[in-house]
């Protein structure tokens, strides 16, 4: 079976595979991207272009922001070989806490935000403590947490909705970054494009889009040059160009749409920055590397001098902070805290991570995958809602998409096996 490996003359340079071979061994990454594009194209057509209208693109981002923020933490928890079922409840609880502090107790907004994030961290730490140091399965600890914090938010809100929030809190979710470029630029661009409905183009959003796209292409090119240098298996040129063109075009397109509405939402900035930070942590830091090792083989990680308990503890603490952040955004978006907030949301978050290619047994998964997975779910939700499909069918379809994604994973793995 190992004949391929027992080849006695090792080639230092990776051989360039044919395009077909490359595609079949990297089907997962491309598959996800294609699926997202296909789903968007489908809904764009069946909704008569409503999906990609400027307002709806803005909405899509706002609606999914808290899912994505939590998916970042959940990816790490799942890669470490655990799961967190409590995030929906924790999110709801933090929203309730914020409402009670701001609305009922008149605490200042910045202080409330700080307290809420700290409380989220403490909740995560409390759950992580039992998982990491007592080896209690995370499924059970966080199932308990799910019930406890659902109950606590009910208790805190006394069963009532509490709101509305002051403006300065609402901008967390509904605010937009002011255009730093002169208004006349945006106006004249709108004029040049001879738009009928739009009087003004948000230049900041447009420039950010172009800059981010350029950045992605530049990083890609640099990585490719380095891969060459070290003989790492290369993506075929066609794929590299196609992928970068698609990603860059999509990014500029989305930003362009945003620029036609009200510009960059604050949440998008938060989300983007967090995504970049977490992608960096997981891919390029020792902590990230150790989490993958912990999830891939806990015993081997331990015998390599890695403090596995501490890492598990940190993964849950981090999840708590992110759930709190999501709770603040969610409350600010709804402009009220309700006892039902975040109900069953943990399932959407977990589904996003698995659709993004993470493995239930740990050690596998990427931040980008989780974010794209969350968007895929978001587009499905949004598109089906626009089409007026009932919540009953929506649930079924989402369930089947999750199953299909995981089956696809397992099938791919067996094929390579």
């Amino acid at each position, binding site marked *: *079976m*190992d*004949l*391929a*490996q*027992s*080849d*006695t003359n*090792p*080639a*230092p340079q*990776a*051989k360039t595979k044919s395009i077909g071979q490359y595609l079949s061994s990297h089907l997962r990454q491309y598959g996800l991207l294609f699926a997202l594009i296909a789903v968007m194209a489908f809904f764009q057509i069946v909704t008569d272009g409503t999906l990609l209208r400027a307002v709806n693109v803005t909405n899509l981002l706002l609606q999914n922001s808290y899912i994505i923020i939590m998916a970042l933490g959940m990816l790490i928890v799942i890669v470490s070989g655990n799961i967190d079922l409590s995030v929906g409840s924790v999110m709801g609880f933090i929203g309730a806490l914020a409402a009670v502090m701001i609305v009922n107790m008149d605490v200042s907004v910045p202080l409330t935000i700080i307290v809420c994030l700290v409380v989220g961290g403490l909740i995560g730490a409390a759950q992580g403590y039992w998982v990491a140091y007592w080896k209690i399965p995370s499924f059970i600890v966080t199932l308990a947490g799910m019930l406890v914090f659902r109950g606590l938010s009910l208790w805190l809100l006394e069963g009532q909705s509490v709101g509305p929030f002051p403006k300065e809190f609402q901008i967390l979710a509904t605010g937009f970054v002011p255009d730093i470029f002169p208004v006349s630029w945006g106006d004249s661009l709108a004029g040049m494009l001879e738009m009928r409905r739009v009087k003004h183009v948000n230049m900041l959003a447009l420039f950010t889009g172009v800059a981010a796209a350029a950045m992605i292409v530049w990083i890609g090119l640099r990585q490719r040059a*380095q891969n060459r*240098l*070290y*003989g*790492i*298996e290369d993506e075929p040129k066609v794929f590299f160009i196609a992928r970068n063109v698609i990603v860059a075009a999509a990014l500029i397109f989305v930003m362009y749409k945003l620029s036609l509405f009200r510009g960059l939402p604050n949440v998008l900035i938060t989300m983007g920055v967090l995504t970049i930070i977490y992608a960096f942590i997981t891919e*390029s*830091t*020792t*902590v990230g*590397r*150790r989490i*993958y*090792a912990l999830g*891939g*083989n806990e*015993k*081997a*990680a*331990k*015998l*390599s*001098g*890695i*403090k596995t308990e501490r890492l598990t503890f940190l993964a849950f603490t981090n999840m708590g902070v992110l759930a709190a952040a999501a709770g603040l955004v969610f409350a600010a978006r709804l402009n009220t805290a309700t006892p039902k907030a975040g109900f069953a949301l943990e399932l959407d978050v977990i589904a996003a991570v698995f659709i993004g290619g993470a493995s239930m047994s740990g*050690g*596998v998964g990427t931040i980008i995958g989780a974010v794209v997975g969350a968007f895929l779910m978001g587009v499905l939700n949004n598109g089906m809602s626009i089409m007026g499909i009932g919540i009953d069918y929506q649930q079924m379809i989402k369930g089947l998409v999750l199953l299909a994604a995981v089956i696809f994973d397992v099938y791919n793995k067996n094929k390579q096996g």
Partner: protein
Amino acid sequence: MALLSMQNISKTFPGVKALDQVNLDVQQGEIHAVVGENGAGKSTLMKILSGVYPHGSYDGKILFGGADAKFAGISDSEREGIIIIHQELALVPQLSIAENIFLGNERARSGVIDWRETNRRTEDLLAKVGLAEAPSTLVDNIGVGKQQLVEIAKALSKDVKLLILDEPTAALQENDSRKLLDLMLELKTQGVTSIIISHKLNEVRYVADTVTVIRDGMTVSRLDAKAGLSEDAIVRDMVGRDMTHRFPEHRRSPGKILLEVENWNVWHPEHTGRQVIRNASFNVRSGEVVGIAGLMGSGRTELAMSIFGRSYGRNISGSVKLNDNEIDVSTVDRAINAGISYVTEDRKSLGLVLEESIRFNTTLANLDDVSSGSVLKKNEETRIAERFRQALAIRTPSVFQKTMNLSGGNQQKVVLAKWLFTEPEVLILDEPTRGIDVGAKYEIYTIINDLADQGKGVVMISSEMPELLGMCDRIYVMNEGALVGELNAADASQERIMSLIVNE
């Protein structure tokens, strides 16, 4: 009469020809050994025979008992009386011996198990394989050696015509292995035909009537025991080259004492009051390879792991000195920082993150040296992994290959690379050549010699006595948690080691 005749078997996997016109003829009532290096195609051949790869997925013909055999799955071959016992035992630990033996084949009347019949037949079978355990004993509570016997009893319960044992003694101790081999000979007198797949040539010589050697997916030779089997001849056929020396020629000159462990005591992590290591004291000089011999369960691995960051046991006491200074080995990373490395006996479940690349695994135990301010320098990592790939001759197209796709010998080299990168003063190697083929073993031995030449101290734990005798300058003998003897290379022999264990 030939019971089994596999003729011109060829099997291709995408891109690899695993078997090429292999022939295997097994006579009624004989013990037939199939030997070959890892990856030679032995397991593939057995999977074809047992129907794991169904008829039609390979070329060639199988005659069993004179009839054309076309198995579509394992149940087909089992019905014909071909039973295969895999390296990894297929027993359910939480069930009793009796339940395991009749699993899937329950003695039952309309779905209700007849326990009296089950236990009676189990007792008969256990007597047959010479296992003195109650049928109700949980499999979890008996050792690997006895579990192997349960597997054989299970095979016998199914009216076996051809028993296939895949590396049956890989996890066994000398005396358990001997018992198992004697059982095979005993079963032979009762008319059971068996095939044994093994790396251990002394065992092959002990039991086999005929030996078929497979190399690179082809039948190389068929040797008859009546004509006399020479291990050297078998090895030559296996590796395709002369291996007059199974151990690299080497002369060592040990320096001053490097590691000194004194009065080391360890208690069992769960059974309080059970002492696993008793007052063990030993030392290793720089440039020296020191062996620890002993039966399985004698506490060798426990000794090593308890020293390495207290990875085993509780209430550990004793002192560890490196270069005359007492060092702190209370956690794994402290032990690593102090200059001690431990290469585990189980590379798959304790040594490697199989899903990850060679590069990932190589730097895992020493990420500090490939990062600045906890940001990884990935190019530096690649450079280091590449350096070890060349230095240890890890056979792979690139260091980005997942370790799961490597052969056993190459995986072991990756584990070694990981620990060499921590730049240890003392390396503890636990069964460093278990389950890897003759050629790779030689390479591992060469690496060990190089380490000793660099002035490092090497502790080598092994169940294969010839390996200890061939490699070590000094050998400690361990029995029931205590070091019961110390032999210099010149005075050591298998007999002397055994007698130290027995006469304790």
